């Protein structure tokens, strides 16, 4: 029992810290593409400390506070379900679908809070966020179905283990298609161009986040960090082979090596998203929905069909 609690604590701390580093990496890499120096890598941590230390001079009621906690809680729960190398706390038979679902829940929490603030920009942002969620469901579902068909299981842990013998998922053609579709979906989950429609600073002033100040925004930053970690980790696990290392005799060394392998894969996923975000303008919401229901859906569906054959 204590061991599990310690594991959970470790996962939480590790996810938060690495998530913040990921946010720093995104900012630095973006700055280098812009030919700038960019902030130090620990900048997001400073931002969060500052935001948490601010005084709140306004609140919009219970839902406004609760929505944020809901988002943070859902993200932490998602992290607990994803196998982190050989460390895992919660495991369920159908956790492939569960995790996919849990990774989208935070958006709903943010939306509750945004809607209760009464700011029209937040309302528009929440509408856009909902539509984006709706748009990414279809390709996401097909990608998950392709995985489940190929490996014959809904368990993330078993998929990771199967990849150790069969090779990474992306080396199988049907799953490569699913991975491409999932990567396009990730772009929207990270909130990067061309699908950063819900925040769109030049259009609706950060959308749902427009009313959050001080501690609310600080908690959202933490949530964002953990979510970034969870999303990249999930992708690395199901498509890039996960981080299971059995080369060393000591299990601690194996774990550390597994984490390092995972870290490299996660950063790779992150960099692809950053590079894509740097060169594309933003879609409008209707164009984005049409796009998601067209190309990624076709690709993912093709993958699912090929996987089941």
């Amino acid at each position: 029992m204590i061991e599990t609690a310690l594991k959970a604590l470790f996962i939480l701390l590790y996810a938060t810290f690495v998530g913040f580093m990921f946010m720093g990496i995104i900012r630095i890499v973006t700055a280098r593409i812009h030919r700038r120096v960019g902030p130090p890598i620990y900048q997001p941590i400073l931002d969060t400390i500052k935001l948490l230390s601010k005084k709140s001079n306004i609140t919009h009621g219970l839902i406004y506070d609760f929505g944020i906690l809901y988002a943070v809680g859902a993200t932490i729960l998602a992290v607990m379900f994803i196998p982190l190398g050989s460390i895992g706390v919660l495991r369920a038979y159908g956790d492939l679908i569960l995790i996919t679902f849990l990774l989208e829940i935070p958006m709903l929490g943010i939306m509750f809070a945004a809607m209760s603030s009464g700011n029209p920009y937040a309302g528009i942002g929440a509408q856009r966020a909902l539509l984006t969620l709706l748009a990414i469901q279809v390709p996401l579902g097909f990608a998950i179905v392709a995985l489940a068909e190929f490996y014959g299981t809904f368990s993330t842990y078993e998929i990771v283990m199967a990849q150790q013998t069969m090779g990474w998922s992306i080396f199988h053609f049907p799953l490569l298609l699913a991975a491409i579709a999932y990567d396009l979906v990730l772009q929207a989950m990270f909130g990067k161009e061309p699908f950063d429609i819900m925040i769109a600073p030049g259009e609706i002033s950060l959308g749902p986040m427009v009313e959050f100040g001080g501690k609310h925004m600080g908690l959202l930053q933490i949530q964002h960090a953990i979510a970034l970690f969870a999303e990249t980790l999930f992708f690395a696990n199901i498509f890039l082979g996960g981080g299971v290392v059995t080369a060393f005799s000591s299990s601690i060394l194996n774990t550390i090596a597994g984490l390092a392998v995972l870290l490299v894969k996660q950063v790779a996923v992150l960099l692809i998203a950053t590079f894509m975000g740097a060169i594309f303008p933003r879609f409008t919401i209707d164009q984005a929905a049409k796009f998601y229901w067209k190309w990624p859906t076709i690709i993912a569906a093709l993958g699912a069909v090929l996987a089941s054959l």
Partner: protein
Amino acid sequence: MVDWRLYEPLINFARKRSMWIVAFCTGCGGIEMPPLMTSRYDLERFGMMPNPAPRMADLFLITGYVTPKTLKRIIITYEMQPDPKYVLAHGSCPLNGGIYWDAYNAIKHLDKYIPVDVAIAGCMPRPEAVMDGIKKIMDLIETGKADGWKRYKENYEYYKKNQDELFGEGWREKTARRWIPWLMGREKKREEE
């Protein structure tokens, strides 16, 4: 109870190195903001970035002259920002009117209406001068001397008196309602017919 004063240096360091700016071009100094934020002078090195929403911003850059019409919005935006917040007046015009010293529609002394922490003189101040001003405000934050937000609370009567003298009593409601008849106008006429 946790003694938060223990963490004061860390918090002050975070506040100093992570100032988010309200994206509000109040005057011609707005033209120097893009060079400051982009590749040439890159203020993101110091953790500063423009933020579209005033609710999570710390630093209010008053870029250039301020007209009464803008000042109303500046005051409202300033009051929307959560404490602690800092104001940096950019250029000669917020100091004493600058080149608009006899203009009927430019504020002459900004610090009568909202507290100003650091003022940068010049028209227009070079980006280096702005960076110098930002360095100054960072020092002030570290030593806890950037207390404009406290002054605004303590001397609210004084600031409110000056604001009311300039705009007339009840200017907030008046400004908020000013456009309602024109937005609704056409519909109202149709009902009368």
